[in-house]
């Protein structure tokens, strides 16, 4: 335990220390709930305010965030989050409202949500949007529930299979498994597209639909997207779009126009909400006309039309065949919706298109600079990200070593070991917010590391050496799980 430089907050605790002194009570004392419902001991740490502040300030200095530097974590779209989002989500009218307030008193909030639904419809080409789902995977589950409800209402009960490409995010099969459906894996072809022949063979009247990420996790736009959609539709299936990579398409391609029936948005990725341990996700779902009646309830709608003098009255409406409520209250309002609304409003339609174009340009620039030094198995023009191999002929250096070494150059590592179809995968997504200088410094570092892998591999095996802590023992952490620091009394395993 030699290199622990800051104890935990529990270890810093000392009985009797406190942050504030409560004034004497000036209201009658209320009785506590029955004893059986109370824990005799709740080990909350006892510290003065200043000790708490210094503890977390110290920890924050060990951290690395997108405000510190480049964060090319593929598939996560770790773009810079503009600080104006922080101002708007703290406006008192948004901050000090409660979801159970009468609708007449929260018309501003409802207007924002209504407009957000409309904007997401326009951006994606869908006929309806729910803002409820808490994050991407929750949005997937919501979407798959609607697909199931659609087939069920048509008494088309033979359909139990979901087609999912081998490049998919792991959440896709997980969401499908939650509903007891069967996953059929569709391989990718040598150009990183869905293998059309394999897809054709899998399409029949037992197919619920297909879940497709486009561009996929290799950063490739499917060159046969129209054929893929047609094959699935022709066998009576529905097309699900995983919106994780929407950043590449903004203002250029609309999934609804391509024939997708349903797609979740990751507002926290595409529309700038701090995420990855730093904040809440938000996973609205858009649907085509076929699924509009199945959307979760409630949606925000106009319940009384306005006119020249009166604003409309916004309220809640329930779709005809709604699958029901997916979340208590109305989605991640302040954390997700207000920040993303601000981001969309600040950029406007042309600005959103610029985002996609710069995201794609930056990824292609990096890919072009690293081609030749690193093997790129699916080597063609990429979209917002690309995947290369973190291994070299005749060397025992692996992707993990390269990533750890990047930390010594003060960069956040890319995504490691995903997608699974690439050996020693390093998945790099620069996002649109980085300038050429940053991209060049990152490419220079990776080229230098490739050289080090040949001449001084121990530098990589022992990396990182410049960070607060060295190489973590990931194996020990995964094998010897400590999931709870204390157990309630009377707990029986």
């Amino acid at each position, binding site marked *: 335990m030699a290199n622990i430089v800051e104890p935990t907050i529990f270890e810093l605790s000392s009985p009797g220390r406190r942050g504030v002194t409560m004034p004497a009570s000036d209201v009658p004392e209320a009785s506590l709930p029955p004893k059986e419902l109370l824990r005799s001991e709740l080990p909350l740490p006892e510290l003065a305010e200043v000790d708490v502040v210094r503890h977390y300030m110290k920890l924050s200095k060990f951290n690395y965030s997108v405000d510190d530097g480049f964060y090319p974590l593929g598939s996560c779209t770790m773009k810079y989050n503009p600080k104006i989002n922080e101002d708007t989500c703290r406006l008192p009218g948004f901050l000090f409202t409660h979801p159970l307030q009468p609708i007449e008193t929260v018309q501003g909030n409802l207007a924002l949500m209504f407009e957000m639904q409309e904007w997401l419809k326009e951006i994606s080409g869908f006929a309806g949007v729910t803002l409820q789902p808490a994050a991407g995977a929750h949005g997937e589950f919501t979407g798959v529930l609607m697909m199931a409800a659609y087939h069920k209402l048509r008494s088309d009960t033979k359909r139990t299979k979901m087609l999912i490409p081998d490049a998919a995010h792991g959440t896709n099969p997980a969401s499908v498994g939650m509903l007891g459906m069967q996953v059929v894996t569709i391989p990718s072809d040598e150009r990183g597209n869905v293998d059309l022949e394999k897809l054709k063979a899998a399409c029949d009247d037992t197919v619920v639909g297909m879940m497709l990420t486009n561009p996929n996790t290799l950063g490739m736009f499917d060159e046969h997207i129209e054929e893929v959609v047609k094959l699935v539709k022709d066998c009576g299936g529905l097309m699900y779009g995983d919106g994780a990579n929407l950043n590449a398409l903004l203002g250029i391609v609309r999934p609804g126009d391509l024939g997708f029936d349903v797609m979740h948005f990751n507002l926290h990725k595409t529309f700038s909400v701090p995420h990855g341990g730093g904040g809440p996700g938000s996973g609205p779902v858009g649907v085509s006309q076929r699924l509009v009646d199945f959307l979760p309830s409630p949606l925000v709608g106009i319940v009384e039309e306005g006119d020249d003098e009166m604003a409309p009255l916004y309220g809640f409406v329930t779709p005809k065949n709604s699958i029901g409520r997916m979340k208590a209250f109305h989605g991640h309002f302040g954390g997700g919706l207000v920040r993303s609304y601000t981001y969309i409003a600040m950029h406007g339609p042309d600005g959103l298109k610029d985002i996609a174009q710069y995201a794609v340009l930056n990824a292609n620039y990096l890919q072009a600079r690293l081609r030749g030094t690193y093997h790129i198995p699916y080597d063609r023009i990429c979209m917002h990200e690309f995947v290369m191999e973190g291994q070299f002929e005749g060397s025992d250096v692996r992707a*993990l070593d390269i990533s750890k070494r990047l930390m010594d150059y003060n960069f956040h590592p890319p995504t490691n*070991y995903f997608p699974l179809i690439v050996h020693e995968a390093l998945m790099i997504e620069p996002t649109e917010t980085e300038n050429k200088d940053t991209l060049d410094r990152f490419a220079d570092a990776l080229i230098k590391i490739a050289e080090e892998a040949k001449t001084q591999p121990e530098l990589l095996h022992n990396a990182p050496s410049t960070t607060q802590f060295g190489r973590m023992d990931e194996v020990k952490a*995964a094998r010897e799980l400590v999931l709870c620091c204390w157990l309630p009394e009377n707990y029986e395993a």
Partner: protein
Amino acid sequence: MNTPSNLKYAKSDEWFDPATGTVGISDYAQNQLSDIVFVEILVEEGEEVTVGKAIASVESVKASSEIYAPAAGKVSAVNKGLSDKPETLNSDPYGEGWMIKIESGQAGEVMDASEYEKYCEGRSH
């Protein structure tokens, strides 16, 4: 890469011993997965399995993978101790790291050792 010649190998990297019906994962597979931290055998003794059925789930620090039956038949034994020491799959994939036995198992599409070695070499780049 260690590929014993008495065994047969599936494309999804399981080995099958036609003489004993024993099933496990190949040395190539354990090396690709790196340090294995979790194993769960998904079938029980007496259960009938078909080729391609998921018989175990394996997690390493890199990835999690399903392990599929390379042969069809009745499961006659399960390596119960394996889940307590998943590292055995790294250290002894063809011995202590065996997963299940399939009684008079009918192998699906499998390769012999030299074919499998070629197949693995073709995949490393």
